[in-house]
């Protein structure tokens, strides 16, 4: 094996999305084993159903792995189960160990409300991760109601945010706004008690390049498009049940009564 280290490293970097291949490489040769670790743990999933014991031991035995994790997914492996407070608390204890995160995905797959369904210790731990200077992306999926989007403020490093659910918008004064490049809001129903989402987004999306939005029957999409019209290059919209529409009532006879 005469290939230089950096060449091999570059080859392994292409396997980030192929964990099985990385495992195979790590088992092929002891030298490979150490080399592939940073790609093997690049994207790590914490299973909310597990006791996290195995992961805690791994991080304790090999502390270097903490710095390899760049994408952290928090989800139940078996979807649509109820998650207990204890399970969230276990994850909360692990979160501060990762110091080089670039992306966090919280994917519970059942409808939850931020404050009432998640223990405070978990919310605080997740908010603590937003302070990491390396963190750029936060994805909250799905359906999370009342996610406090003001949590993104004062974290100028975050430029990609997605939420499936209804955001909770509140007034925040004297803060540093993140300058989002990518924003996705789906499953969103405007709550009259909240400050308009468009008003919240205004100072945060002036450099937006990508927008995904469920086109509901309110002004929000138009507001968002106006704010970022100079920079937006990618748009993804849904025309569904909840838009007002005008139809052509006698356009075509296509289905016959049998």
């Amino acid at each position, binding site marked *: 094996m005469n290939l230089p280290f950096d060449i091999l490293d570059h080859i392994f970097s292409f396997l980030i999305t192929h964990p099985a291949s990385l495992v195979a490489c790590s088992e092929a040769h002891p030298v490979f084993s150490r080399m592939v670790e940073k790609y093997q743990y690049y994207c790590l999933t914490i299973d909310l159903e597990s006791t996290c014991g195995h992961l805690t031991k791994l991080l304790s035995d090999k502390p270097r792995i903490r710095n390899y994790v760049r994408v952290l997914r928090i989800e139940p492996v078996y979807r649509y189960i109820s998650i207990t407070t204890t399970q969230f608390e276990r994850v909360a204890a692990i979160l501060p160990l990762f110091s080089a995160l670039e992306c966090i995905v919280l994917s519970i797959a059942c409808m939850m409300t931020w404050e009432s369904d998640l223990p405070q210790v978990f919310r605080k731990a997740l908010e603590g991760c937003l302070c990491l200077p390396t963190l750029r992306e936060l994805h909250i999926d799905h359906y999370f109601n009342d996610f406090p989007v003001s949590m993104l403020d004062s974290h100028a490093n975050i430029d990609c945010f997605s939420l499936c659910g209804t955001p909770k918008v509140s007034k925040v004064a004297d803060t540093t706004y993140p300058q989002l490049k990518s924003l996705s809001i789906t499953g969103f129903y405007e709550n009259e008690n909240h400050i308009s989402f468009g008003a919240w987004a205004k100072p945060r999306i002036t450099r937006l390049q990508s927008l995904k939005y469920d086109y509901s029957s309110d002004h929000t999409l138009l507001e968002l498009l106006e704010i970022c019209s100079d920079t937006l290059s990618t748009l993804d919209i849904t*025309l569904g049940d909840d838009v007002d529409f005008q139809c052509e009532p006698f356009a075509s006879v296509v289905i016959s009564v049998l």
Partner: protein
Amino acid sequence: MTVCPFTLPDSTRTYFISSIIQNGLPLSINLPPHLSNLTIRALIRIFPDSDDTVPYEYCVSFLPAAIEIFKAAPSLCRITLEINVYPTYPNPTAFDDVDLSPLSPLTALADSPGSSRRIDLHFNLGWDYTLTELVSLLANYTGLAELMEQDVLVIHLNEHISTPFDTYI
């Protein structure tokens, strides 16, 4: 704000949703001038008769509204249209009767200046239906067969659209 989802009279027709309205007036969307990549997810819903004696009473299609929005974009490089078809219960025969003619203007979009001549058309159907059947169905509409032959129009069946938003989702 008035939301009136599908409060249409009983009929044996397809109701083409031609425009989105706000406060009773058709809404024109001012798309950003530099927009190069536009994805629209549009709904086709097939409604059964309430007494179940008639398999399908009418159909609501958002395809015309989607095409109108595409036309309003000045310089798209990539057009993606996802068509989600929801019958109340699976009936491929009923889908064969759905009028997809609003898709024909895609031929004009493919020819428009600034276009990369690539249009991805995704169909999400909740029942057994083959890509061959779908392509055969679309080929009946003016201009679509030629676009498919030229690989300008690419048909996808029950395939997830990969977007910048869901790299890790």
